[in-house]
């Protein structure tokens, strides 16, 4: 395990590709920096003269916007190079994209891509820093970081927690990044969903698996709902949205049975009425809008730390 960075001077990592590669010290350094950013927004332009490029090969509203706001708050110039539409296959190769990004002289490339590992390939080819904004089913590290930040803000701590991740674990990068983060912090993680949407053998990561949502409601501190993708039904992974909602939806009835003080999270965008009822999404327990808001500070923290590594 690498030494724990105590401050920006100790930060050596140039890219943020995943939570799985981070040390606990690095995780805590990001969250500490994010707290500073939220409490007292940096004055001046710590990233003045820096250029941040967003390359989103998959649709996104909140993540790209959030990175843009974070970068502008820090005085960086923001440009977007996302391919139009979803006709990525007709576009240039990832290698050419990476070389183009490098030739444009950017300091940060924020990359979202449908292929797991694509940001790693970009990182290997450019001089600037790469931030993974979601790659395939692999990771979405800043999402997990903003989730942790929000949990700490609401619950006052980040350890000794029982966390349930509910839904499509098999395909979810949000679930993976959160799983690695909570395992790193020593929290208990329960993965909840139909057997078809939970990877075989995932118990060896230390997580528990539950197929009955009702058994986890009363004893978890964090209930994180994941977005249900309709194409999983077409692939035969569950029979219908109606059955899914009945078995795995956070309905009003289930909300009422949560542990006192438990919070309800969702990375968005939500399918109201499928994985989460409106009453649950809009309840006092819900942190959904806090998550979006905190994303800005977490991303500011990541950008300033990566900037310091140069």
């Amino acid at each position, binding site marked *: 395990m690498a030494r724990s960075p105590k401050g920006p001077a100790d930060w050596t990592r140039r890219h943020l590709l995943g939570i799985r590669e981070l040390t606990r010290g690095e995780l805590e350094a990001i969250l500490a920096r994010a707290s500073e950013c939220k409490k007292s927004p940096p004055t001046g332009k710590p990233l003045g003269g820096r250029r941040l490029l967003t390359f989103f090969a998959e649709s996104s509203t909140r993540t790209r916007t959030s990175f843009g706001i974070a970068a502008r708050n820090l005085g960086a110039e923001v440009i977007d190079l996302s391919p139009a539409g979803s006709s990525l296959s007709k576009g240039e190769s990832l290698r050419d994209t990476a070389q183009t990004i490098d030739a444009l002289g950017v300091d940060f490339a924020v990359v979202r891509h449908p292929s797991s*590992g694509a940001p790693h390939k970009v990182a290997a080819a450019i001089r600037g820093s790469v931030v993974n904004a979601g790659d395939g089913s*692999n990771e979405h590290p800043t999402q997990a970081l903003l989730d942790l930040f929000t949990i700490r803000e609401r619950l006052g701590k980040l350890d000794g927690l029982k966390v349930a991740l509910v839904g499509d674990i098999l395909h979810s990068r949000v679930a993976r990044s959160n799983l690695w983060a909570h395992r790193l912090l020593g929290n208990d993680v329960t993965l909840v969903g139909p057997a078809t949407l939970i990877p075989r053998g995932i118990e060896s990561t230390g997580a528990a698996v539950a197929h009955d949502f009702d058994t986890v409601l009363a004893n978890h501190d964090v209930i994180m709902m994941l977005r249900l993708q309709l194409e999983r039904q077409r692939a035969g992974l569950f029979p219908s949205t109606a059955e899914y909602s009945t078995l795995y939806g956070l309905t009003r009835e289930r909300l009422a049975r949560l542990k006192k003080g438990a919070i309800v999270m969702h990375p968005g965008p939500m399918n109201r009425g499928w994985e989460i009822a409106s009453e649950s999404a809009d309840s006092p327990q819900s942190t959904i809008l806090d998550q979006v808001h905190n994303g800005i500070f977490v991303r500011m923290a990541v950008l300033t730390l990566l900037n310091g590594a140069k």
Partner: protein
Amino acid sequence: MSSILIKGGRVIDPASGRDETGDIWIVAGKISKSGGKAGRTIDARGKWVVPGLIDIHVHFREPGHEAKETIADGCAAAVAGGFTSVAPMANTGRPVDSAMAVRYVRDRAAEAGLARVFPIGAVTQGLKGEELAEMGLMAEAGAAAFSDDGNPVMNSEILRRALEYAAMFRKPVISHCEDAHLTKGAAMNEGLVATELGLRGWPAVAEAAMAARDAMLARWTGARVHIAHVSAKETVEVIRAAKKAGDPVTAEAAPHHLTLDEESLRTYDPRFRMNPPLRAREDVQALVDALADGTIDCIASDHAPHTVEDKDREYDACPNGVIGLETTLGVILADLVAAKKLTPMRAIEAMTTGPARVLGLPHGTLAPGAAADVTIIDPDRKWKVDPSKFRSRGRCTPWEGRTLKGAAVLTVVDGRIVFER
């Protein structure tokens, strides 16, 4: 043709069980006990003298995808790797599913004049798995076996008929075992590593279940089935049971499955992407054991070249396949023989008499009177794998940069020296 004397090498000839220092004469294109005056004498002291190696699973891409590989370049790679006979699969750019295509492959191979080429014809037209290809006419034109390799024959009725039909011509059907429903979109072995990397898994059962089906069909039809590129321990169990029951089943394993595991994929490196995928460490061990005990009959490279552009893509979008003809011998000698997992005799057997028996070829032997296909191996030669030096058009190898020990230094096909290092 003047005679050649290969003098003082360690002669390893699995067909006769011979493993001793001795001389090999080549007279008029045949192996001979003695000769008169040698036109050339080759000092083979410190070297192994073995029957020309045979690789019954290669992809030469021609006709149709000559940018990936041509028959001529594939043959040049073969002889540089010590292989004197190769069997290219039918899933070329334009599939080899007709007598005309079989003749084309043989003609191109004859023009190249390097390795012996035994074309494998398609089982079904266009490799679509729907209607039988003209196996009889292809057999007549020189097809050595039939396979839709690259694709499984998913329809059991089609495979049943193909087996019955191919058996009339005494040709095996080579089966690419993959239940395609179980592997849709898969990018690597299903398991914890795939979960950690967020890649879609290719479960071992997709191979083993199809191998079990194929073994049962082989038993029932009495026709010979050869299981290509075995990758999973469960498939080894199926083959072991089938052989024990006397079913007409043979099997091969590729050097990458015999030596590498899924951990290699942690960097999303396309050099480790092939089909079937690299499996877990236990699978590698099971394959090595099965090769050592004869459950797996032979080593075959599954030499699968692509252009650099094809492979240099995001991991889950790049095509499957790595090349092998020029690295197989070095990898087997370094990682299995030098590591004492396989005896030299068994290793050579798995690249000579083993594959020869699968396809019914009269090669892979140093018996006097046999056609003179001979490979001289320097077992101590250390060399670094540098793809830019390959004869193959392919560049993608999992062993790039590795230092291997053992290489072919001279290759004789039909009494002619076709490669010399």
